[in-house]
């Protein structure tokens, strides 16, 4: 992948909100890089500081310390005028869409163009073209109130694209949408990323969003960067508690596995092993079996990944036989209770 040019460089960025009698550290010494053309996910529980972090990327929030470098420019050193000019290269979409309810779909998409003084005819033409990209060319004269949530977010995406931005920041852009619509919006974003080579930064609390379209992910916990890496690596071998918290529930879902059961293990298959009948081979080779509590395979960055929560036999000898079998085929089961307390 030719995505080595760095578009965002964050060096020891911190944000502290102070008032008379309290101090909240929203972002705590985060350093990371975002590459041009990639889809970068920032995931964390609500209140983890990810929304503050993304607002520092277009200077809606000032950093308390550290620096945010966008395309070689330190955002903190820009004049108000330069800041506004830079923001025109950094589009943003929001959880609540933030469309103007009193303007038509077309007029909403025209706004960023109006701000830079594009003529009326040209504005309409560009707006129509962008609405076509998001599949809403037949809704130009509708008002936002007449649209569904998914359609509103499409309008917001068209409005963002009207600026011809270098980066698209998505602040919980799918959190107000149902799973099916979320899926559609994510596909649209992925499509835009590929077609326009637009860098996309996605803020979310939903692991499935990251899994579906992100190349790399930063896990933010309590304002700190808990983990950073390729999505497939983080997903396969989460190191931090925060990562495990976020990843495990998506596998376990609402499966009734007993979290206090010492025999519960999580096994992760890499792309190769997922195609093998691992459990069937276990039975064939060792005569022992495991109880599958939860299983899930998904495509992450184009490679199939599988995860299972299994219950090993209680008998210590059989338990060891099963453990050895998995180790021998290159899978390291991790005991659930050791891994995370949900």
């Amino acid at each position: 992948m030719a995505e080595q040019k760095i578009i965002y460089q964050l060096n020891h960025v911190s944000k502290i909100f102070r008032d008379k009698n309290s101090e909240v550290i929203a972002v705590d010494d985060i350093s990371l890089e975002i590459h041009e053309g990639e889809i970068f996910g920032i995931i964390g529980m609500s209140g983890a500081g990810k929304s503050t972090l993304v607002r520092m990327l277009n200077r809606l929030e000032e950093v308390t310390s550290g620096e945010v470098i966008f395309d070689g420019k330190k955002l903190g050193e820009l004049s108000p005028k330069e800041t506004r000019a830079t923001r025109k290269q950094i589009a943003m979409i929001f959880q609540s869409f933030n469309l103007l309810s009193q303007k038509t779909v077309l007029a909403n998409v025209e706004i960023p163009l109006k701000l830079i003084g594009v003529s009326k005819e040209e504005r309409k033409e560009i707006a129509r073209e962008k609405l076509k990209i998001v599949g809403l060319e037949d809704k130009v004269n509708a008002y936002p109130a007449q649209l569904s949530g998914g359609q509103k977010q499409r309008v917001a995406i068209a409005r963002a694209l009207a600026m011809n931005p270098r980066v698209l920041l998505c602040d919980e852009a799918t959190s107000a949408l149902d799973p099916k619509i979320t899926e559609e919006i994510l596909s649209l974003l992925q499509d835009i990323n590929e077609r326009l080579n637009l860098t996309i930064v996605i803020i979310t609390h939903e692991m499935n969003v990251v899994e579906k379209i992100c190349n790399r992910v930063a896990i933010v916990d309590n304002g700190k960067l808990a983990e950073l890496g390729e999505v497939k690596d983080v997903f396969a071998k989460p190191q931090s508690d925060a990562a495990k918290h976020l990843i495990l529930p998506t596998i376990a879902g609402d499966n009734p596995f007993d979290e206090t059961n010492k025999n519960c293990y999580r096994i992760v298959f890499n792309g190769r092993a997922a195609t093998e009948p691992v459990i069937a081979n276990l039975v064939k080779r060792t005569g022992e079996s495991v109880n599958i509590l939860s299983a899930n395979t998904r495509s992450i960055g184009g490679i199939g990944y599988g995860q299972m929560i299994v219950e090993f036999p209680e008998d210590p000898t059989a338990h060891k036989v099963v453990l050895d079998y998995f180790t021998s085929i290159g899978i390291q089961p991790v005991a659930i209770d050791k891994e995370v307390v949900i």
Partner: protein
Amino acid sequence: MNSTLWSLIGKGVIETLEMTLISTILAYIIGVPYGVLLKVTGKGEIMEQKVVNKIFAFIANVFRSIPFLILLVFLIPFTRAIVGTSIGTEASIVPLTVGTIPIVARMVEQSLNEIPYRITEAAKSMGANSWQIVKEFIIPEAMPSLCSGTAINTATVLGYSAMAGCIGGGGLGALALNYGYYRYQNDVLFLTVLVLVVVVQVIQESGVLISKRIRHS
């Protein structure tokens, strides 16, 4: 009831409308920027200016707390300085405008406050400057509310214009006072009240109608 009376009432209606509309328009010309100023300099707003906000909010409150009848008398020297007289329809426009500006300012501020901050945030993220945030985002969003506010304000000015009749202003107020009150012509009094009610109804209803027409949320 003779034709003279009818022509008096006709003249009164015209004078009242003249006073009301001109005063309202003048009050809006000054009151809208005033209200925008109150909004944008407020706490946490795009041009937060504590001192400026406090001063302008104080001035607005002072003028709003003076009963209009007192303000009318109080402003007589000022009115004379501007229009040369303190009697008549034109002269009434001065105190009417002055008295209405703070009302308009507060109403505009309130309408703009209804627009959630997330709209401002979206505007900022597009690189809009403060002027553009107000002009392209906040005011268009607040338009339906500004419209219904205008209807209420116009009706208030109409009520005030009747008071101007007390100190030599023209219009229906003067008519009701001079014929109805001082000369015990109850029919004139009754008729004036009826006409006033109709005029206020028309203003209020058309305001509501326009507001509904342009509201899309």
